[in-house]
């Protein structure tokens, strides 16, 4: 557990959080290297299924982030996203997926420092929580079954 390096995927929108993360870079604010960003045009584009895929493939934590309400480049994408997150989070909670491992945030293009905070806090939190054993377990048992079926 000592040298556990959490794998964290960040799903962010191009206009606010991606640009905010660019600003974190330009201002040379340091943050943990565990987070890797996947760029979307808008939070409205972020499909809940892609979040499931991330956990399934070994992500220990997820960050989803976009423009603050009213600031969406496409004016309303983030509002739609927010509704979906509310529902999806409910469902995750009900099915025992650990919602503590998925962080939703609004980070604007001007909030370079906030982005560094979001990343660092998430990494620290996930590091403390440890690897996402539950999900990993079913991933492993699935792999085994797949192998068996391949051999057959």
């Amino acid at each position, binding site marked *: 557990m000592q040298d556990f390096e959490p794998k964290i995927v960040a799903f962010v929108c191009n206009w606010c959080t991606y640009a905010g993360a660019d600003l974190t870079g330009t201002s040379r604010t340091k943050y943990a290297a565990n987070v890797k960003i996947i760029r979307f045009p808008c939070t409205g584009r972020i499909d*809940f*299924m892609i979040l*499931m*895929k991330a956990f*399934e493939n070994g992500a220990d934590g997820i960050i989803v982030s976009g423009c603050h*309400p*009213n600031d969406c480049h496409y004016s*309303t994408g983030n*509002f*739609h996203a*927010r*509704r*979906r*997150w*509310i*529902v*999806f*989070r*409910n*469902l995750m*909670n*009900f*099915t*025992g*997926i*650990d*919602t503590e491992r998925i*962080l*939703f*945030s*609004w980070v604007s293009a001007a909030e370079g420092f906030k982005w560094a905070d*979001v990343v660092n806090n998430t990494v620290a939190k996930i590091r403390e929580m440890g690897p996402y054993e*539950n999900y990993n377990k*079913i*991933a492993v*048992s*699935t792999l085994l*079954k*797949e192998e068996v*079926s391949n051999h057959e």
Partner: protein
Amino acid sequence: MNELINKVTKLLNDKTIDAFIGYGQGSTDRVRAIFARTVEQASKLIYTPACTFNLSGYLLKHEVKHLGKLGILANVAALRSIMQLASEFQIKDGEVYILFVNDDASLTEFSDFQSIEAFLEKANIDITPDEKARIEKIEAMSVSERWEFWNKEFEKCIKCYACRAACPMCYCHRCTTDVNQPQWIPVASHERGNLDYHLMRAMHLAGRCINCGECANACPMDIPLNLLTYQLIDPIKTGFGATAGMKADAVYALSTFKPDDKENFII
């Protein structure tokens, strides 16, 4: 029952409809759906306390649609299905002849969507106390207990897709489970694929599920699938003010928003 048969017979005779979807006696004790196209077939229609399942799922089936103008015996769940399908442009007003059996065994005909909407406003559309209790029981569990609970349930799934076939809202020609580029949902029935499948189904039904329970009824492995979507009914109602299957021109809860939608988890 005679009133129903007489009515359907009349409808068939004067060509108001070409076929009527109703309940009939199955080969065993079970009640099944029958599609009456002739007066003779109409005479087999029954309506007993066992006739509870939602027939509306048949309305969009290719084979059934081909029968011509349809009539249907609808219960509350079926009426809500029809409203929801209407809001999704799958059924047009006046396209289906709808009959409803009242508590006193008399028949009500719904001439248009408006009358259904008015009826549903007064109807009991809640999930049963038993279902509610089961949801509460799950909600009372810890996160990992919930995870274990559902894992055990999903482990049983054999991916027969009976739930999908039974659901009146699952009318897509090509379900995402059948998409292979990318392969969102693994084909084999193992924990991962099963979890993916059931979460996806629940999300796709969030705000659309009209709690008829056909998914769980259809499941040969007795997975309480209905609870997944039932559990979302309340948050969608209280959070967004939306209930599925109440109005033919409703806007889908997840296709709209309010600028001040409340949440407490986005930082």
